[in-house]
């Protein structure tokens, strides 16, 4: 294999986007599953156990490094593709009727991705970074349920989270199928299945994520103070 072809040709660059994109979709499955456990009315026991398992397991810690690299690769390659592709039409059309032949979100992946990135920085600063820092310095994880409860008291934060999840939904609405197409897997036979799963995923996962800040904001979930701390 000529590695130059694999990474720098126009198809190679897209392969990087597709492979990292599917990895991020796989991560979202884990993330949404574990976080949705807060809705299980068992005194947040299942959520705490799952979050602690992911937070303390060496394998998931290693996978986290892969995840971070994947995110960075997806962002850097995406921004580079966006700027390179823009340069391929130096003189723009005076009239360009994009909606006649394609969906707005398929043409706006760079914009949607940038919105998600802004949200992601805030999101990591809220939960991931302080938790890892405390884990590193004291060896104990933070009580993430209580953190969520505290952070989602702020209406503006909740709105930003909702907007972030809506950006994610539209990004996935195109990205899910697009990744499979780029990897050469979306054949005539499988395309309807991939499309169907993609649309369901793009709606359900962001909706579940949106439900979390909203539920805390409106006090639909029991307060953290009502639970006895699970010993780690």
């Amino acid at each position, binding site marked *: *294999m*000529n590695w130059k*072809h*694999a990474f720098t*040709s*126009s*198809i*190679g*660059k*897209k*392969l990087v986007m597709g492979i990292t994109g599917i990895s991020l979709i796989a991560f979202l499955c884990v993330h949404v599953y574990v976080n949705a456990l807060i809705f299980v009315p068992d005194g947040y026991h299942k959520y705490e156990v799952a979050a602690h398992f992911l937070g303390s397991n060496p394998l998931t810690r290693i996978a986290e490094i892969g995840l971070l690299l994947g995110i960075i690769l997806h962002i850097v390659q995406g921004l580079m*593709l966006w700027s*390179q*592709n*823009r*340069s*391929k*039409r*130096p*003189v*723009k*059309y*005076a*009239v*360009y*009727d*994009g909606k*006649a*032949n*394609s*969906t707005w979100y*398929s*043409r706006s*992946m760079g914009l949607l991705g940038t919105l998600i990135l802004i949200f992601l920085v805030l999101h990591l600063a809220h939960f991931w970074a302080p938790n890892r820092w405390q884990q590193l310095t004291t060896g104990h994880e933070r009580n993430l349920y209580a953190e969520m409860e505290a952070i989602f008291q702020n209406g503006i934060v909740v709105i930003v989270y909702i907007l972030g999840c809506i950006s994610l939904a539209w990004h996935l609405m*195109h990205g899910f*199928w*697009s990744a499979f*197409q*780029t*990897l*050469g*897997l*979306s*054949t*005539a036979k499988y*395309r309807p299945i991939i499309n169907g799963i993609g649309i369901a995923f793009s709606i359900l996962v962001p909706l579940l994520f949106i439900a979390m800040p909203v539920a805390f904001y409106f006090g639909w979930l029991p307060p953290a103070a009502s639970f006895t701390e699970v010993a780690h």
Partner: protein
Amino acid sequence: MEHYNMNLTLKVWRQKNAQDKGGFETYQVKDISSEMSFLEMFDVLNEQLINEGKEPITFDHDCREGICGACSMHINGRPHGPWGQTTTCQLHMREYKNGDTIVVEPWRAKAFPVIKDLMVDRTAFDRIIQSGGYISVDTGNAQDANNLPINKDKADESFAAAACIGCGACVAACKNASAMLFLSAKVSHLALLPQGEVERKTRVVNMVDQMDKEGFGSCTNTEACEAECPKGISVLNIRRLNAEYIGAIMSGDDK
């Protein structure tokens, strides 16, 4: 369908040569028949310009029956105008009504520089074909018919891909000015047949290399190309191109 005449306002891109900056000129045309094709309407406009002692508008056209792919006009924001699976010569004036304003631009892409007015240089496509769009065959007498058995469905798929006329509407429509639909059609129609097997892997790698050299963008899968293709070439061909490319680089057959 009832026949009627119309008066139109045309905003047409005029550019003296590749170096000229260019700009829009506004023209009025009168008594255009609804039964004319779009190009015939341009013929009327050009005669008018010649009679007025002005330079006629340069535009590509050849067969005027939808098979040559020459008539490259971007009409009101869409390649070949608003009709599905048609070229500009197949677009008829019954689409428009009296008093309409129509904006006509050349294909816009770095790889398709404007030669003059609405005419662009599409030789980049020829160079992509030269880089791999061929097969090796033994010389001598033609083989007997049906010497090479080919599945009907494969032959049909190959034929559908071979319907590409190389007009460049896919590039013109794509937000990235990508030539992936064109290239995927050219790769597909040979990759699906036993005759294309010998150069199968080197073909796809060389043609993608050439496409990148020519300055086309990469594919974002918006599918605008399929929607605007006058021959209805499917993006399933882009799927096949990607798979062929991955197969070629994974097997190490790319040099």
